[in-house]
């Protein structure tokens, strides 16, 4: 059930990410829904889930985006695994720690991604801080929204149904 949910989340994230990228070419870098899905799965289901979903999501994204297949995948695998480990180590059930996790994971993913490309293309390492900060913030917000929807939505719906039934 957990695996299926994780896979569904990943597929949804990939679909949304490609859709957003297609609609807003310039704003595609403002959010990385795949990273959000991976970090969410890692915090929810543990490091192994983060590991596999990071690998799978990254491979699909790399394959769809072109370029070297495996760079984004490796970055997401690292992020997913570390997020899972940290999620098991620390209490990240509150909003702020979760936001920090998403922001940190996004930053780590970007550093790994750019670092690996700099390594394999033998070029200097360059990090664009402004887009990174924007993406990290957006990812954090999207991640918090995802947690809110998943955790709160069933209760809200239940209460709404109960309220309707009372009237």
């Amino acid at each position: 059930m957990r695996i299926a949910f994780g896979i569904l989340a990943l597929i949804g994230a990939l679909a949304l990410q490609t859709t957003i990228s297609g609609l807003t070419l310039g704003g595609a870098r403002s959010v990385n829904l795949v990273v959000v899905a991976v970090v969410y799965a890692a915090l929810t289901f543990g490091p192994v889930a983060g590991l596999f979903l990071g690998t799978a999501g990254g491979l699909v994204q790399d394959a769809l985006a072109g370029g070297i297949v495996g760079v984004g995948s490796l970055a997401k695998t690292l992020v997913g695994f570390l997020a899972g480990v940290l999620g098991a180590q620390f209490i990240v059930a509150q909003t702020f720690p979760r936001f920090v996790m998403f922001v940190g994971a996004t930053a780590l993913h970007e550093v790994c991604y750019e670092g690996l490309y700099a390594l394999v293309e033998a070029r200097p390492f360059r990090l664009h801080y402004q887009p990174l900060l924007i993406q990290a913030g957006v990812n954090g917000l999207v991640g918090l929204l995802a947690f809110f929807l998943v955790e709160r939505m069933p209760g809200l719906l239940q209460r709404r149904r109960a309220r309707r039934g009372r009237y």
Partner: protein
Amino acid sequence: MLDNLQRTGARPRTGLLFLAVIVGHVILISSQVQSGSGMPVLEAVTFGAFARLQGVTAGTVRGVRDSWSAYVDLRGVRAENEALRSQVDDLEIRLQEQRTLAQRTERLQALLDLKAFVNAPTLAAEIIAGYPKRGLLTVTIDKGSSDGVTENMAVIAPTGVVGRIIGPVASHAARVQLLIDTSAAAGAVTERTREGGMVVGQDGDPPLRMELVSNLADVQPGDLVVTSGAEGIYPRGFVIGSVESSERGTHLYRSITVRPSANFRGLEEVLVVLIPPRAATPENTSAAAGGGPR
């Protein structure tokens, strides 16, 4: 890192899984990234790692192949060597045959020349046997009475007088007493001074001596000795040999040794002079002393 993972609650299997996935990624990326030489990193690393192994394997295979090739070649060389050796032996035999044939041709040519020179009917004969017994030096020729050969006919060779036919004569073979036999003799005369005498065989070296030559006669070493025909067997003027030594004798006659011109050790073909012997007469003797054709 694994210890850290264990402290954080992750099971060791998770850490191994993480490592495996990371390694898988590295391999995946390396397979697409080109190295400085233009070769993908994965290929470069694989190539570098396996190059030595391949080198060892190739060297071993090459060594085995070379050894096998050398062995096969050696076997081939050995067989070829044997075949070539056999061929060389065969060719040497053929060469010997050809050389013998050439020598025989030369001898027969010389014999033909001699036959043309002799003013008498002659018959070429081949020596088929020899009996080098001390005191009786004879050979057998392949011509006999059916070919017209009779006893006491002269036998000559291109290089000089050989001997005479002695009986009995078979129909297809005859015995020849060599001139160097101790009981053989021939009337002789020196070519330079026409001093007459008799050449007889002796048991020594040289195997001929000239007798009945006066101490007063002028005979010197190197003088050619030819047949005089006085005994009625040998035609006149055929070379017997040359004087090797000529010394004054203790009695009336000189002591003269003659080296035969015919090579008695290498005789193969001879000519039989088909003239029946005639009795020795004073006329013949004087005529012989007077010289004859040569």
